[in-house]
């Protein structure tokens, strides 16, 4: 199963594909240390709260945005 994280294609391992969640996707994108940093997630342009990463399923072709704080005006 392929998904997109911040516009880049990632392949979810077959073993994880059956019950893949946002939490699985984040492990493809972030190291364990990086998962402790400050970020927020949207799945197909819908906000997903951190309490729901493990229970929000993903499917082929889904697009995930992982956003971090930056400077702004």
């Amino acid at each position, binding site marked *: 199963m392929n998904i997109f994280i*911040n*516009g880049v294609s990632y392949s979810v391992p077959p073993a994880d594909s059956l019950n893949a969640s946002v939490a699985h996707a984040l492990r493809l*994108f*972030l*190291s364990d240390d*990086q998962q402790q*940093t*400050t*970020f*927020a*997630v*949207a799945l197909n*342009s*819908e*906000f997903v*709260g*951190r309490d729901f990463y493990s229970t929000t399923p993903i499917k082929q072709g889904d697009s995930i*945005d*992982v*956003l*971090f*704080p*930056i*400077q*702004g*005006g």
Partner: protein
Amino acid sequence: MSLTIYGKTLNSRLLIGSALYSSPQIMKDAILASGSQVVTLSLKRQNPADKSGNQIWQYIQEIVAQTNGHLLPNTAGCKSAKEAITLAHMSREIFNTNWIKLEVIGDDYNLQPDPIELLSATEQLIADGFNVLPYCTDDLVLCQRLSDLGCEVVMPWASPIGTGKGLMNPYNLETIRLRLPNTTLILDAGIGKPSDACLAMEMGYDGVLLNSAVALADNPVAMAKAFALSLQAGETAYVGGVMAERQTAHPSTPTLDTPFWHQNS
């Protein structure tokens, strides 16, 4: 004098952005010099291995801690209500605040807000419990509609973001002030010089939000101080009451008993 926004009392009427500075340390020094207690910031995609974003975030947290300040996340870059609503929810989770500087851009050339999408996003976000600070054009009716929806704060632009052109339409801005006397009005975007900020405060605006004017100055720390002073001057002038403009000259020196040179005329 203090300013209260959505129940939080601030010692400064200047709201300031954290972007475009030449270094994080200069950003911090300038924001501290400004006296502002509200710092805007944003969310973006980023390579998680890139430490620079995290460094900026650390600096901003230090500023807020030192000033007993508040974060004001924005929805910069959003072009639809749906995008802005999603980004606002993401911001609330990260920054733990209901405040959102709502930007929905309708035109790439001048970054003019889209009034239709802005109203739509505002309505939904207020329903979702946000304290919305909408960035909008200097259109009286749009500002009225935003206020009617429940925005305690409305933020019309002075001119397009980053132009430094100052107050393009003083008449519009004065009219908004006159017609919305109970709405907190923050002039946002396009400020170039401290005198621009002073003029807004002389009109009775409640505050000014700016970024480029400080960040792009030759000396951002000095410019931040200048803006702080200009807001104080403008606010004090508004309280003092600016004299009515007159069409004809009036001598300020008393004319009664004018001495010799008029006596033979």
